[in-house]
C-alpha cells in the first residue's frame, strides 16, 4: 500500500510534466499540423537559461519568468523564420526542419553549458524532511509543488484558449484558417503566437522536471519527456487539448506502475512501452481517444 501510494505520487509528477509537453505539442499541431520534434529541446534550452541564472544568484522564480520570455521569443522566431517557409514546401521539408532543430538545439546546449550533469534547484523545498505522510507513505512537497504548478499552468492555458479573445482567434485559425483570414484574423500572427505559447508551456515543464529527472539537468534530460509527451499527445488525440492532459497523466501513472509491477518490461523498456501503446492507438484509432475526425488539414 505504502509502495503503491509512492509510485502513484511519482507517476503523477511525471504525468503532469508529460501533460504539459503534450499540450505544447497539441498547440503547435493546431497551428501548423505538425509535431514539433524540437519542442522538448527548446524547453531544455530555456531550462538551461533558468539554471544559469540561478547560478548567478537570481531567484528561481525570476529565472522561470525569464525562461518563459526567452522560450516565447525562440518559439515565435522559429515559426516565423523556419517553419512557415518550410510549410510552403510541404510536409516532409517541415519535418526535416524540426528534426534538424532537434539536433542543433541539443548541440547548442552542450556547446554553451557543457556535457556534465548539473543539479538544479527546484521551485519547491526538496529537503529529506519535506514530505507529508499518507498512510505511512511519503509524499514530498516537491511532488505536490509540481502538481500544483502544472495544474495552475494547465488551468491558465485552458482559460486563455477558451475564455479570451486571443484564444478565440487561436481556435478559429486552427479550425479553418482560410475562413478565419476572411473574417479579418491575421492567421500567421496567431500561429506565431501559438508557437511562442507552446514554448512557454515547454519551459515550465522543463524547469519542473530538471530538478527531479534521473538525468538532472543535462543534454539527455528532455529526450524521454519528448517521447512520453508525443506518445501522450497521440494517445489523447493530436488536436485535443484535454486529450493531451489525460494522455500525459495516464502515461505517467502507467509508467510508474508498470515499471514497478511488470517484471518483463523492467526499467529498460520504459519508452518502448509508451511508444508501443502510441503505435497501437494510432493503428486502431488514428485520431486518438479524444481527437476529432478531421485529422489532416486538406
Amino acid at each position, binding site marked *: 500500500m505504502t509502495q503503491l501510494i509512492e509510485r502513484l505520487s511519482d507517476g503523477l509528477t511525471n504525468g503532469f510534466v508529460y501533460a504539459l509537453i503534450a499540450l505544447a505539442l497539441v498547440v503547435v499541431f493546431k497551428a501548423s499540423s505538425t*509535431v514539433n520534434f524540437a519542442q522538448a529541446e527548446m524547453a531544455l534550452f530555456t531550462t538551461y537559461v533558468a539554471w544559469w541564472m540561478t547560478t548567478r544568484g537570481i531567484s528561481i522564480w525570476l529565472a522561470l519568468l525569464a525562461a518563459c520570455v526567452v522560450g516565447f521569443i525562440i518559439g515565435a522566431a522559429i515559426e516565423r523564420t523556419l517553419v512557415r517557409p518550410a510549410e510552403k*514546401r510541404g510536409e516532409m521539408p517541415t*519535418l526535416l526542419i524540426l528534426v*534538424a532543430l532537434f539536433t542543433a538545439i541539443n*548541440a547548442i546546449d552542450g556547446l554553451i553549458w557543457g556535457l556534465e550533469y548539473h543539479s538544479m534547484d527546484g521551485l519547491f523545498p526538496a529537503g529529506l524532511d519535506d514530505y507529508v505522510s499518507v498512510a505511512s507513505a511519503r509524499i514530498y512537497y516537491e511532488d505536490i509543488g509540481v502538481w500544483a504548478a502544472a495544474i495552475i499552468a494547465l488551468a491558465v492555458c485552458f482559460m486563455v484558449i477558451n475564455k479570451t479573445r486571443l484564444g478565440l482567434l487561436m481556435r478559429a485559425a486552427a479550425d479553418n484558417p482560410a475562413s478565419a483570414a476572411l473574417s479579418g484574423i491575421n492567421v500567421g500572427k496567431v500561429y506565431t503566437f501559438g508557437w511562442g505559447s507552446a514554448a512557454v508551456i515547454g519551459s515550465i515543464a522543463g524547469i519542473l522536471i530538471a530538478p527531479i529527472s534521473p538525468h538532472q539537468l543535462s543534454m539527455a534530460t528532455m529526450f524521454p519527456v519528448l517521447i512520453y509527451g508525443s506518445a501522450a499527445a497521440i494517445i489523447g488525440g493530436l488536436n485535443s487539448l484535454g486529450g493531451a492532459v489525460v494522455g500525459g497523466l495516464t502515461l505517467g501513472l502507467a509508467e510508474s506502475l508498470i515499471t514497478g509491477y511488470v517484471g518483463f518490461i523492467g526499467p529498460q523498456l520504459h519508452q518502448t512501452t509508451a511508444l508501443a501503446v502510441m503505435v497501437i492507438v494510432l493503428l486502431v484509432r*488514428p485520431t486518438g481517444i479524444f481527437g476529432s475526425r478531421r485529422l*489532416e488539414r486538406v
Partner: protein
Amino acid sequence: MTRESTLPKPASLPAKRSLMRPAVIGIVAVALLVAGGQLPDFRVSQIASMLIFAIAISGLNLVAGYGGMLSLGHSALFGVGGYTTAILISEMRLTPLSTMPIAIALGVLVGALMGLPATRVKGIYLALVTLAFAVAFPEFLKRFEELTGGAGGLVVRSVDLAPPAWSGFDRFERSQWMYWLSAVVLVLCLFLVRNLIRSRRGLSITALRDNEIAATVCGVSAARDRISLFAISGGITAAGGSLYAMYIGALSPELSFTVFTSIQLITGLIIGGVATLLGPLAGGVAIVIIPAVTLDLANGQAYGLVFGVVLIVVVFLLPDGIVGRLQKMRVFTGRSQSAAHTST
C-alpha cells in the same frame, strides 16, 4: 519535393550507346576503386565508412525518397544488421561474411514490421511510428543484456574480423578488405534499387507517393507495396549495419544506434539528393566528412549543430540535393530527361 519525371522513356537510343554507357561507367568505377585502394590506410578506411553509410542511406532512400515516407527508424535497421553480425561472430563463431545474409534477412523482417503501420498512417504519424523503432532499439539492447552486452556494448575480437584467406588480404589489411567489400555490396545495392525503381513495382511505388488515391484507383495495392518497400529498405540498411559492425568491431547502443544516427542518415540522403540513385553515395561522403571536419571545433561537440544547420540550409537552398541538382544541370549526360531517367 519535386522530382524529375520517372516515366519510362521510349526505347529510341541507338544500341551502341546503351552499351557504351554502362561500360564507361564500369571502367571509371573500377579505376576509381583501384586508385582509392592506393591511398594511405586511414584514408582507405575512411572511404570504406563512406561506402558503408552510402549503403545504409540507399536503403533509407527507398522509403524516404522513392516512397516519400520519412523514416526516423532506420537507425534500428542499421543496428539490427550490426548487432546480428557482431553477435553471430562472437557467440556462434561464424565468419563475418556468412553473417551477412542472416543480418539482411533480419533487416527485411524488421523493415516489414516497420512497414506494417505505413499501410494505415502516413506523414507525421508514420514519422512518429518509425521514431518508436529508433527509441525501442537501444532499450531492447539494454533489456537483453546477456546477448547484446547491454549499455556497455559488444566488442568483436579483431582476429575474428580478419579478411578471408581467398581475398588475398592478410589481417593487417582489413581496411583494404572492408573497402573492396563495401564497394561491391554498394554496387549490388544500387543495382537492386535501380532495377526495383524501374520495375512495375517501382512505378507503382512512386505513383503511390505522388498521388495515392489515383494510384490505388489504378489498381496499385498500397499496403503490399509499402510493406515490401520497407522490407527491402530494411534489408539494404541492415547490410550497411552488418558491414559497419565488421568495420568498427565495437558496438554500443548509445554511440551508433540512437535516433541521432537516423538523423545523420536522413541528413546524408537530403544532402545527396532524395530519389536519386547516386544521392546516397554523396550523402555517405557528407556524413563522414562533417564530423571529421568539425572534430577540431569545440572538442567535437559542434557536429550535432553542424548537422542541424546543414540540414536546414539544404532543405531551403538545395532541395534537390547535390545529385539532384547535378542532374538538373545536365551534368551526367547532355540530355536532362534521360539523365533523370537513368539515375532515378
